[in-house]
């Protein structure tokens, strides 16, 4: 048999080969490889590689101080998840905490000391020499001390009660004196109002509402079911898992819709509404209770008695102010009286700043009338700061609102908490002259501290240093935790205590310590040892998830060791309060006149030009405050979905919008008597007619867009001029230019 190679057979072979290749897996393999190859461009990010480990810490992105379990790949902090069984967060964490790892690389993160080009909010930041900046500040401090001045210097601590707070006070003390300032947020303002109803001679205590112990809850707009876990227990009312909830809210919020009773009251009518409920409690429901009668009839000097004041707040009269019927007011008061322990909470939307001292006092007075304070009630009483660290601190804290304008030459601002609402103009007004400076110790060129600052000295980001986290305001129990670092800070980020030490050195003060960080660590250790030595409370150890009595710790430094691995100290004890120490009209009866002045509701100001004014409520989208620096991934909530509008969108009732000719999505100018801002209109049927709602944060810069200038949203409500700025009159007009 011969093998003849013909042209025909050659062509057939070649044709068969081509067909075979086409039908073989080879082309698909080539396509697949090409696909894989095109996924490996150098510009595509590559995840870190390395052994995976977990480390526990405490979140410092808001005062709640939730437990976080950080996932590390090698030395990279890649994500954070809840800590099961953590006493503060009950195994839960909010979106901020979930994305905490991104904060270290936030586009607004500073990479050196930075100075604003001009004292304008939209002025760009210029990188400056940190040593030169410290030398300049040191010279200012030295000159001040040489003059023997005791004024002009202040430090604003946005998160008081920490070990750093103690170091700030020591710093001021060694500089010959200075003001240690705080700026109460909505929670702190509420707690402060409670203190005003207690005699000065009584045991100082902070209110600790415990929802789990209440049979009924009346909330004045508090976002118990809105936002990021308002602390309200989930579950079915009929199963007894949660208290009977009554929500006072102008809008159909998630809390209002989930409440057992939703009371649609006009914004600004909270004080008369609370006093009308007190009127019912005192005069109808509880008039047979000698305890209530004694409280209501206690004389307050010229102010008379609480019962006498309540004559001006009958349900019929208040009905006209609140929009609620007299019967609704009576029924609400009776529900509270019949379902005790009852709890009444104020605060409102914390993103909108304080509810108002008068409103909060009226709310707390309801709790006192209902006998909610004490072991049988739902309102505990903690030592004033949650924990008394016996630090003998000097100087004492002063509210920023209480110092005169034009009185400061140098204002240092602690920016370790990137989310506090700080009205920029309020800070700027305190400066004495053009040479006066606001210096922020912050990791970010955005956020609360940097908002008003001329100079920012870069500090580590949350998760890069050990801060301590004292009891959150209005928490049910006292607690204490540290935030052990889960990542190393970059070279340019300097521990805030180290900045203080450098400033002391530059100003010629010979401090009692050479290393700020060492001093801070010593203070942390002192606090842990002090807590342990008192032998009170329990300790949660995340290593095994167990909670044990502190008395079981043998080693005197054991608590410090547990805190250093992300543990938490917890104390459920509560102080006692004697009815004889209660002052329902304030310590000097001053509340009577202030409440009467609000009998018609809190005025919202005027828009001024005769156009149809609406009522603007400034609030917090998810309780996010203005200036909060947020992980960029939160864009998913604010830009990539319709879930939350952020601070760019002004929401209003569709019928009102149609009446004003404002279509959904159009650009509009929002003008109050204090400021003007460009917004996008959002039709929101959950709002009542004539009400406009604007979230105070986050803005584009806070979400990671460094190209956007910062704006001071709070100033729309006149935050630098009014103690309550969540409510103001506003005019909305469509902006028709194409560049809007």
């Amino acid at each position: 048999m011969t093998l003849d190679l013909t042209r025909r057979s050659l062509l057939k072979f070649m044709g068969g080969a081509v067909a075979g290749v086409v039908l073989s897996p080879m082309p698909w393999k080539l396509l697949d490889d090409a696909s894989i190859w095109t996924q490996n461009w150098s510009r595509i990010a590559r995840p870190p590689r390395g052994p995976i480990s977990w480390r526990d810490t405490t979140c410092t992105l808001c005062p709640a101080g939730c437990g976080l379990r950080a996932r590390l790949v090698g030395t990279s902090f890649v994500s954070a998840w809840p800590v099961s069984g953590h006493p503060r967060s009950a195994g839960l964490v909010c979106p901020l905490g979930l994305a905490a790892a991104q904060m270290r690389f936030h586009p607004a993160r500073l990479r050196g000391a930075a100075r604003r080009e001009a004292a304008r909010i939209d002025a760009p930041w210029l990188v400056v020499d940190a040593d030169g900046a410290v030398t300049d500040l040191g010279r200012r401090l030295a000159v001040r001390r040489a003059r023997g001045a005791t004024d002009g210097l202040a430090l604003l601590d946005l998160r008081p009660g920490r070990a750093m707070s103690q170091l700030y006070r020591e710093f001021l003390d060694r500089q010959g004196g200075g003001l240690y300032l705080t700026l109460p947020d909505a929670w702190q303002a509420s707690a402060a109002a409670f203190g005003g109803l207690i005699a000065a001679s009584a045991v100082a205590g902070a209110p600790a509402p415990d929802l789990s112990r209440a049979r009924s809850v009346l909330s004045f707009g508090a976002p118990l079911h809105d936002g990021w876990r308002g602390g309200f227990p989930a579950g079915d009312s009929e199963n007894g898992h949660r208290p009977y909830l009554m929500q006072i809210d102008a809008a159909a919020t998630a809390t209002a819709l989930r409440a057992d009773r939703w009371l649609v009251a006009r914004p600004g009518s909270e004080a008369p509404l609370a006093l009308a409920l007190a009127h019912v409690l005192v005069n109808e429901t509880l008039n047979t209770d000698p305890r209530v009668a004694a409280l209501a009839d206690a004389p307050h000097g010229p102010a008379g008695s609480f019962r006498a004041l309540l004559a001006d707040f009958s349900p019929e009269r208040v009905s006209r102010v609140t929009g609620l019927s007299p019967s609704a007011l009576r029924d609400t008061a009776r529900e509270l009286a019949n379902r005790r322990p009852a709890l009444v909470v104020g605060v409102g939307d914390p993103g909108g700043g304080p509810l108002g001292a008068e409103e909060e006092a009226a709310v707390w007075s309801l709790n006192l009338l209902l006998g909610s304070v004490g072991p049988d009630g739902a309102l505990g009483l903690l030592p004033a700061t949650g924990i008394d660290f016996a630090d003998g601190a000097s100087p004492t804290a002063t509210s920023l609102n209480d110092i005169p304008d034009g009185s400061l030459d140098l204002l240092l601002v602690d920016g370790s908490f990137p989310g506090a609402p700080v009205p920029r103009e309020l800070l700027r007004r305190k400066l004495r002259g053009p040479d006066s400076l606001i210096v922020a110790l912050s990791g970010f060129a955005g956020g609360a501290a940097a908002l008003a600052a001329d100079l920012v000295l870069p500090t580590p980001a949350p998760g890069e240093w050990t801060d301590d986290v004292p009891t959150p305001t209005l928490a049910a129990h006292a607690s204490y935790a540290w935030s052990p670092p889960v990542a190393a800070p970059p070279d340019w980020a300097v521990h805030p205590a180290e900045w203080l030490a450098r400033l002391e050195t530059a100003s010629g003060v010979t401090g009692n310590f050479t290393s700020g960080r060492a001093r801070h660590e010593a203070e942390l250790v002192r606090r842990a040892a002090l807590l342990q030595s008192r032998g009170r409370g329990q300790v949660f150890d995340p290593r095994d998830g167990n909670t044990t009595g502190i008395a079981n710790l043998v080693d005197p430094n054991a608590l410090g060791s547990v805190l250093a691995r992300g543990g938490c100290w917890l104390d459920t004890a509560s102080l006692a309060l004697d009815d004889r120490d209660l002052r329902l009209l304030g310590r000097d009866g001053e509340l009577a006149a202030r409440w009467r002045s609000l009998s018609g509701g809190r005025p919202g100001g005027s828009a001024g030009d005769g156009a149809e004014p609406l009522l603007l409520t400034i609030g917090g989208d998810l309780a996010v405050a203005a200036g909060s620096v947020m992980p960029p991934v939160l864009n998913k909530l604010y830009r990539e979905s319709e879930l939350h509008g952020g601070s760019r969108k002004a929401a209003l009732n569709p019928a009102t919008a149609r009446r004003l000719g404002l279509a959904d999505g159009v650009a509009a100018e929002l003008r109050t008597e204090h400021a003007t801002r460009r917004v996008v209109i959002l039709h929101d049927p959950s709002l009542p007619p004539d009400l406009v709602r604007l979230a105070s944060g986050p803005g584009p810069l806070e979400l990671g867009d460094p190209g956007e200038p910062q704006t001071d949203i709070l100033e729309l409500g006149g935050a630098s001029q009014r103690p309550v700025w969540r409510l103001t009159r506003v005019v909305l007009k469509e902006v028709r230019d194409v560049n809007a």
Partner: protein
Amino acid sequence: MSTHSGVTATTSYAMVIDLDKCTGCGACMVGCAVENNISVPPVAAAENRGLTWIRVYRVDNGKEFPEHRSVCVPIPCQHCDNAPCIHVCPVTAVQMDESTGIVGQIPTRCMGCRYCMAACPYHARYFNWFDPIWPEGMEDTLNPDVSPRMRGVAEKCNFCHGRLDRARELASAGGRPTSEPVTYQPACAEACPHGAITFGNMLDESSEVYQLAHGPHAFRLLEALGTKPKVTYLSREPWVRRIGLSRLDMVRGLADAPEGA
């Protein structure tokens, strides 16, 4: 036990979302994005160009204030047993894992035609309009268990397959056969601060997810289409349960049927 294409499965992962507990906080969206290396689009991009493997929609009853009521509805991929996206994909980039019931997306096969997006009645698929780029340094926070996807491919929820793999590795290291069902939680379920998301094996009748999915308040989205989604929703509110109805239901008159029908 169930069979798909002749393969016997012991596991069919499914999810139950309690809408009465969801407050629209968005923790599921953030947890998902962190876990699955989902990037943020450029600032200049249109708002609808983002990637949200699970997206929370706000649905209302269509009435004006004060009768207005709304509910937040998290919608991930429904992992349909009869998934339209699988049928339309011309390059078999969408496949169902017969052993778990998870509908997976294979980005290396995807050619970006977006037929799957058009076919998905739940709008649960997203197109990667941009290269996955993070702010400088932030790639150091990416999850090493999940590869970032390239521009030009479709994406969707895969019930956190990276976590499933880790759970299998742990089970295997513990000496269990890899064919046995493993228990794990997707990122959204772990992140939800209200306990609204329950995840588990629907073939296990003792599992919580099975019990909830067969409760009186359970419903699924667009059931009339016959897609057989594995995500079940719960609500005690009748008007909320009606959001699962489709135009087909209306044609068939189901929309007017008494509640619970």
